[in-house]
């Protein structure tokens, strides 16, 4: 059992380990949940790991999945062994090339971590929607259902494609398999060699395009022969299932693991059978064994090779006794009379029944159902319900299982408490942690320890929420003596061990719902052991008594601090788990934890290792078992999930999602078209900050910089008449407005939302005002939240009741003034100190009440639109940004479509106004049509006119009045914003960006440039600077950052700017105002520090400043309007580089780690980057200094001639 070939890895690594060794070329592109496969391949290549033939594969990152597929196609045609990894929409982008690759009978394997498609919403989780959309391409489809299979079938896929020349799509379930950590038996190179025939590889090479033996492929065929050509491949498809089975048999001979095209499990005389593929089959396997053990006669038919579909093999695998079949599909085909696998099975059975000598006495009754979309839980209770349904006289067809469909009533009911005996003798453990506390990595490490040092089987699955700051993680770990097929979460009353790594969760989650009777509850709490019981909510105390919980506590933060580990508690809590759970002897476990620490940190810092060791040793002494009293003593309950005052929708829907009860949301509560209300983030009080800013009203000069830089929109300014503060809570702060721009009877306030603040401290950092006599005291200072929370909550609540200052009166060209505009983007779950969100917030302040947003997929679409809540919100009039995320690749086009639609409707409205001017009145019609709408006042005036028009229209008896009612709002100027990151704008969406810029239409493109694919974990984009280490550039990116601005300036009618708000806030503000005012395309490229830079984001502003001063990020504006006025359109807003480039990059880990690993290379990159910077500055300077008027003057006569 403990042979060296046992591995504890996840599904992605399992598949990639084979794919890498059997490839020469991997064309990759990041997409969740497949990104780790490409990352691993890249990392292995960087460390010069060799493939099966002893050479290091070439890994190339492409600009999109379409590009990756094209590169794979080319590599294959040129005779290489090529692969790629993808999922979801990425796979869809590969479809055109998949037809080509298959059409040319080219051996290739695509490894897919199958994922939902973006329909009514994007989802990163697993189902078969993506792969099912490719079943017509001609690719064979081989499905793995577990981590073990993800590895094994990867090999079979590569071997089969080489032998049979049909390309193979090898897929497994996203997250459930791709991210499950499991103990599996590895495949060494000999296993690979046993299946891969060199002759097949050489045959592939011999078919390559080569000028030495040239051929033509990819011809254009006509009606005469195309059809025949399509049919010419039939023999290859007919032979392929046999080839796969042969290889499966040979694989069994070398490894002992036997797979079949269709694997039947269960009673030989089963009457009811479930047919299914993917990880769900594992849960069915577990349930079938249990049911048959109980005397039932049921079976499972697991589909491994889905295409080419070998109906005979399927039928042969089914017992002749079968009467009822349920076919489960993990996909939905709206409008179809059944999902793909169901229809295939029905067809197979029907065809068979139509033949002589049918296998079944009667055609079995087949029902189809959907399950598990977007990683929805699929449990034994649900499987039992399906078998039960099969037993009914008229079982429901086209059913769903796992949800409550109270609209079209497709769903089957199931017993949530139903359990198999699969976990007898198992340890099932749950860990609630914060994303940043390292709980997940410690748990992965624990699984490895147990997997590698015991004979136990191990499984780990990790559930994340959608936030980046303060993300909650729940780790589900199982250990036991038998293979684990439970492809579902640990259920209610099941966990023998529950650890709460963050005391704040006591207030948020019902963690003990999952606790089994007699379970251990381990709590990290600052309370003393004798007081910790009283810190628990009442219902939790009751649960503990009812379930006879064994209660342990530790003040892990204290232990961590004393060991100089800061807030890093993971190894401390890990130690406690091992000591309490007894999975391993304590000494052995602790030694293993220490060995893991040594392995991780050993080379990187002795002291980190020592601190960890100290923390591990101290954990034991600080761990206490707390005896349970005999009764409940607590006088408080967990607070309501959302703040009072929330709408009914928020109460019934959003609150349930926040509380983790989303699985119970019935279909009827879901919007039918993916539409949700705005402003919901305000109801989710996350209380993340340990310190919050405190305003010194007397010292403050009211510059407005603090609300500008706040990434979460939690510090706000307001200006109101003094008289409105009559009922202010005691301790509410305000100060007479400074300066002459505003009425002198008004007072200014800078107020923080204490429960929404993340404590990043950037507002204090930017504050320029210091006490004249005490330089350490600013006008804004961080202070511990605890004595302030209640006061500031009251202050914030009062602040919200105060009216906003009239937008028409605000001097928007100043920071102070613009910050009086209400942000319509607030409390996002972006990373603490995010460098992107201040730009979005600024746009929402300036234009939010008339803004349409097209948002590319990425960080901004996730913190902007991931349920349960959205930071996009409305003003008191109910107006606000209307937001949508189409895809990653098409965002510019998506936004352009919005613009065109608005423009068209505006034009139509104006035509109707003209037509109806007899009724409306000449003057109003003329004003409506001629309104300039260049500033807040003129826009407000137009709003008033439109309102006047709306009041008139109902009285006009003309069908055109009805038409105008529907489109009149378009007479008010709308502002279209196309927002996304550099991965979109520089890479996958660049073609669209380019086209939209060229269109000349009035759109505003905001590129939040973090210089990497931030959302998927920091992969290289074309915005990544030379010398930066990023995923896919482990040795430092060798090429310079693409100059997107320069490319855009080439169009001459595009407003282009580089901004960095913390380096020059006025320039940023000016840019946003001018870009929006420009009647044509605008491109704002915004420097956005990101955690992927390896910088503590409390230095966000410093990094922006260094980027500008070093010349890495020159500030400039290219204004076509200036050219029209005879001036040079390019204006440099930052001075010549004033510090060495090295002074900038030495502060960021993404650059300076290369000095630690490859100093020579780093020096060379630095020298070249310094040249780049100098050269670019001079180039820009020359352009900005060009004598525009004369040139323009010279040109004119030429044109006239």
């Amino acid at each position: 059992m403990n042979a060296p070939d046992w591995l504890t890895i996840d599904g992605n690594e399992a598949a990639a380990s084979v794919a890498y060794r059997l490839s020469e070329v991997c064309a990759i592109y990041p997409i969740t949940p497949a990104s780790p496969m490409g990352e691993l391949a890249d990392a292995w290549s960087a460390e010069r790991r060799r493939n099966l033939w002893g050479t290091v594969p070439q890994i190339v990152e492409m600009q999109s999945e379409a590009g990756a597929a094209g590169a794979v196609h080319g590599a294959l045609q040129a005779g290489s062994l090529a692969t790629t990894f993808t999922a979801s929409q990425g796979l869809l982008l590969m479809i055109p090339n998949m037809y080509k690759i298959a059409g040319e009978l080219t051996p290739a394997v695509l490894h897919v971590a199958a994922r939902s498609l973006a329909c009514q919403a994007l989802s990163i989780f697993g189902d078969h929607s993506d792969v099912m959309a490719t079943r017509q391409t001609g690719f064979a489809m081989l499905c793995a259902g577990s981590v073990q299979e993800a590895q094994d079938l990867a090999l079979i896929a590569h071997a089969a494609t080489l032998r049979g020349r049909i390309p193979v799509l090898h897929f497994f379930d996203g997250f459930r398999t791709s991210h499950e950590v499991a103990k599996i038996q590895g495949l060494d190179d000999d296993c690979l060699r046993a299946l891969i025939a060199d002759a097949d590889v050489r045959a592939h090479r011999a078919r390559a395009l080569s000028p030495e033996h040239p051929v033509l492929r990819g011809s254009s065929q006509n009606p005469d022969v195309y059809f025949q050509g399509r049919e010419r491949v039939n023999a290859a498809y007919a032979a392929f299932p046999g080839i796969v089975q042969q290889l499966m048999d040979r694989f069994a001979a070398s490894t002992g693991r036997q797979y079949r095209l269709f694997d039947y499990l269960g009673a030989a005389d089963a009457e009811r059978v479930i047919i299914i593929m993917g990880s769900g089959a594992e849960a069915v396997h577990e349930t079938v064994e249990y049911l048959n053990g109980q005397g039932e006669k049921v079976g499972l038919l697991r589909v491994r090779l889905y295409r080419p579909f070998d109906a005979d093999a399927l039928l042969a695998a089914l017992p002749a006794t079968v009467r009822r079949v349920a076919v489960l599909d993990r996909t939905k085909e709206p409008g179809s009379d059944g999902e793909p696998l169901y229809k295939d099975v029905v067809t197979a059975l029907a065809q068979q029944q139509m033949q002589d000598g049918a296998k079944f006495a009667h055609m079995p009754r087949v029902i189809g159902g959907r399950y598990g979309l977007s990683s929805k839980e699929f449990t034994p209770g649900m499987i039992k319900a399906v078998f039960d349904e099969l037993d009914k006289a008229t079982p429901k067809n086209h059913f769903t299982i796992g949800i409550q469909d109270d609209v079209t009533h497709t769903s089957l009911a199931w017993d949530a408490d139903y359990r198999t005996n699969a976990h007898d003798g198992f340890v099932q453990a749950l860990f609630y942690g914060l994303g940043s506390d390292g709980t997940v990595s410690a748990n992965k490490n624990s699984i490895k320890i147990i997997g590698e040092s015991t004979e136990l089987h191990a499984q780990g699955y990790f559930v994340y929420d959608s936030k980046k700051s303060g993300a909650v993680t729940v780790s589900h770990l199982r250990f036991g003596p038998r293979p684990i097929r439970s492809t579902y979460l640990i259920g209610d009353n099941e966990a023998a061990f529950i650890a709460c790594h963050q005391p704040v969760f006591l207030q948020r989650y019902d963690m003990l719902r999952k606790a089994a009777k007699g379970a251990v509850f381990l709590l990290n709490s600052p309370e003393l052991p004798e007081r910790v019981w009283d810190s628990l909510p009442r219902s939790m105390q009751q649960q503990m008594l009812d379930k006879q919980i064994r209660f342990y506590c530790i003040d892990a933060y204290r232990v961590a601090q004393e060991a100089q580990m800061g807030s890093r508690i993971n190894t401390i809590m890990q130690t406690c788990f091992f000591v309490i759970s007894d999975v391993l002897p304590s000494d052995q476990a602790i030694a293993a934890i220490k060995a893991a620490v040594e392995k991780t940190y050993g080379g990187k810092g002795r002291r980190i290792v020592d601190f960890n060791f100290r923390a591990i040793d101290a954990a034991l002494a600080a761990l206490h078992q707390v005896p349970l009293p005999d009764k409940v003593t607590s006088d408080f309950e967990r607070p309501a999930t959302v703040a009072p005052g929330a709408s009914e929708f928020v109460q019934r829907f959003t609150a349930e999602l926040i509380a983790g009860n989303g699985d119970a949301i019935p279909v009827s509560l879901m919007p039918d078209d993916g539409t949700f209300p705005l402003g919901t983030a305000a109801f989710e009080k996350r209380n993340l900050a340990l310190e919050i800013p405190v305003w010194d009203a007397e010292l403050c000069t009211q510059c407005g910089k603090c609300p500008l830089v706040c990434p979460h929109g939690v510090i706000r300014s307001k200006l109101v008449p003094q008289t409105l503060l009559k009922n202010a809570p005691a301790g509410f702060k305000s100060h007479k407005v400074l300066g002459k721009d505003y009425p002198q009877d008004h007072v200014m306030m800078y107020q923080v939302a204490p429960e929404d603040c993340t404590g990043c401290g950037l507002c204090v950092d930017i504050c320029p005002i210091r006490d004249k006599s005490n330089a350490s005291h600013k006008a804004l200072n961080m202070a511990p939240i605890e004595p302030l929370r209640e006061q500031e909550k009251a202050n914030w609540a009062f602040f919200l009741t105060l009216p906003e200052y009239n937008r028409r009166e605000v001097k928007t060209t100043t920071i102070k003034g613009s910050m009086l505009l209400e942000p319509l983007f607030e409390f996002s779950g972006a990373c603490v100190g995010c460098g992107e969100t201040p730009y979005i917030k600024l746009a929402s302040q300036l234009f939010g009440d008339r803004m349409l947003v097209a948002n590319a997929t990425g960080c901004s679409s996730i913190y902007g639109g991931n349920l349960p809540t959205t930071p996009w919100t409305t003003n008191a009039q109910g107006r606000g940004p209307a937001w949508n995320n189409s895809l990653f690749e098409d965002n510019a086009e998506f936004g352009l479509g919005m613009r065109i639609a608005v423009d068209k409707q505006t034009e139509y409205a104006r035509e109707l106004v003209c037509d109806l001017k007899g009724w409306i009145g000449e003057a109003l019609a003329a004003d409506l049509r001629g309104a300039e709408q260049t500033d807040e006042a003129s826009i407000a005036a137009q709003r008033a006119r439109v309102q006047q028009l709306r009041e008139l229209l109902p009285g006009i008896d003309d069908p055109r009045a009805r038409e105008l009612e529907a489109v009149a709002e378009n007479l008010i100027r709308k502002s279209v914003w196309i927002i996304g990151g550099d991965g979109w704008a520089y890479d996958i969406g660049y073609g669209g960006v380019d086209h939209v810029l060229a269109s000349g239409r009035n759109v505003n493109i905001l590129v939040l440039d973090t210089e990497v694919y931030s959302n998927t974990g920091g992969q290289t984009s074309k915005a990544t600077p030379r010398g930066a280490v990023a995923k896919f550039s482990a040795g430092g990116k060798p090429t310079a950052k693409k100059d997107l601005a320069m490319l855009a300036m080439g169009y001459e009618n595009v407003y282009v700017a580089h901004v960095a708000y913390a380096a020059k806030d006025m320039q940023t503000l000016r840019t946003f105002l001018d870009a929006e005012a420009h009647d044509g395309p605008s491109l704002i490229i915004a420097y956005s520090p990101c955690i992927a830079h390896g910088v503590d984001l409390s230095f966000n502003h410093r990094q922006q400043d260094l980027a500008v001063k070093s010349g890495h990020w020159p500030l400039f504006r290219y204004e076509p309007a200036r050219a029209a006025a005879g001036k040079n359109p390019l204006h440099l807003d930052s001075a010549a580089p004033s510090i060495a480039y090295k002074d900038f990059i030495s502060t960021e880990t993404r650059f300076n780690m290369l000095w630690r690993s490859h100093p020579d290379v780093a020096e060379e990159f630095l020298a070249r980057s310094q040249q780049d910077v100098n050269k670019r500055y001079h180039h820009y300077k020359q352009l900005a200094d060009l004598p525009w008027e004369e040139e323009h003057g010279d040109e004119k006569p030429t044109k006239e001639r």
Partner: protein
Amino acid sequence: MVDLTTDYLGLRLTNPLVPSASPLTRDFDTARRLEDAGAPALVMYSLFEESIEASEAAAARFFHEQAIGYGEADSFLPIPDGYLSELEDYLEQLTNLKQSLHIPIIASLNGISASGWVQYGKQVQEAGADALELNVYYVAANIDESAAEVESRYIELLYELKQHVSIPIAMKLTSQFSSVGHFVKSLEAAGANGVALFNRFYQPDINLETREVVPSLTLSSSYETLLRVHWTAVLFGQVNLSLAVTGGIHTVDDVLKALMAGADVTHLCSVLLKQGPEYLANLLSGLDAWLDEHDYASVRQLKGSVSRKHAIDPSAYERANYVKVMDSHRSSSGVWR
């Protein structure tokens, strides 16, 4: 031919011009150029305790932030295989220098705390350092701490280190001790093999615009040699450990004065940073020429010849000298007093 050899920390050196801890030794080629120019030994750039800590903290944070607990990103930055911590980097450079150069290498540790030093000391010894210079840079900002307590920090640290490290140890001192001579004696008793007089401080400076306190460092000037010469002269003959003058050595005259006061070696830093490694050869030939012109057979002959013990007027090294200097100061005529 003048015999330029000298003994320092028990090492026989070909001459007394030893490049001190500076960025020059960070670069391998520069180190080789120093050797070629005649450097008899090298004190490596300092391994700063704060810097090790900062880089380890950065590494820890970096590892920490690899996982933010977010489903779409298992990690952020790839960690290259060849990633070395600051300490390992230092040890690797030390090993490389030892392997490629023929002269002794003195490692330099700079810091304040006792923790870690023993380990670092052992590691540099294992990496092949011929001696260790310990630069205990402690700012006695706590006004409740007495001078004796401050001194005992140094002594205890040295004592502790001597238990574990067998290579010679030189203590690099600041001039801010109330009784430098007594303190040096105590260090000798605790096992110090030498002292280097004196450290130059980064002085905190105030940025008038931001009102932030920022560190500043200016390169030394010859004038600064005098303080070192003074104390070397006082110590020579009263203690038996090696004496090094560091800080302000720019010219052959500076070197001569330090040697006459009793230094075994003089450390060069600013002058080499300004003039380049090859300038060491100039100083060396200047020293040789001076000794030759003045009929000195060896550096040993010169060493301590104008120490307090051997000075024409020993009181010139004492307070009387101070009065004389003050007395000699006259304002320019026309200045109202």
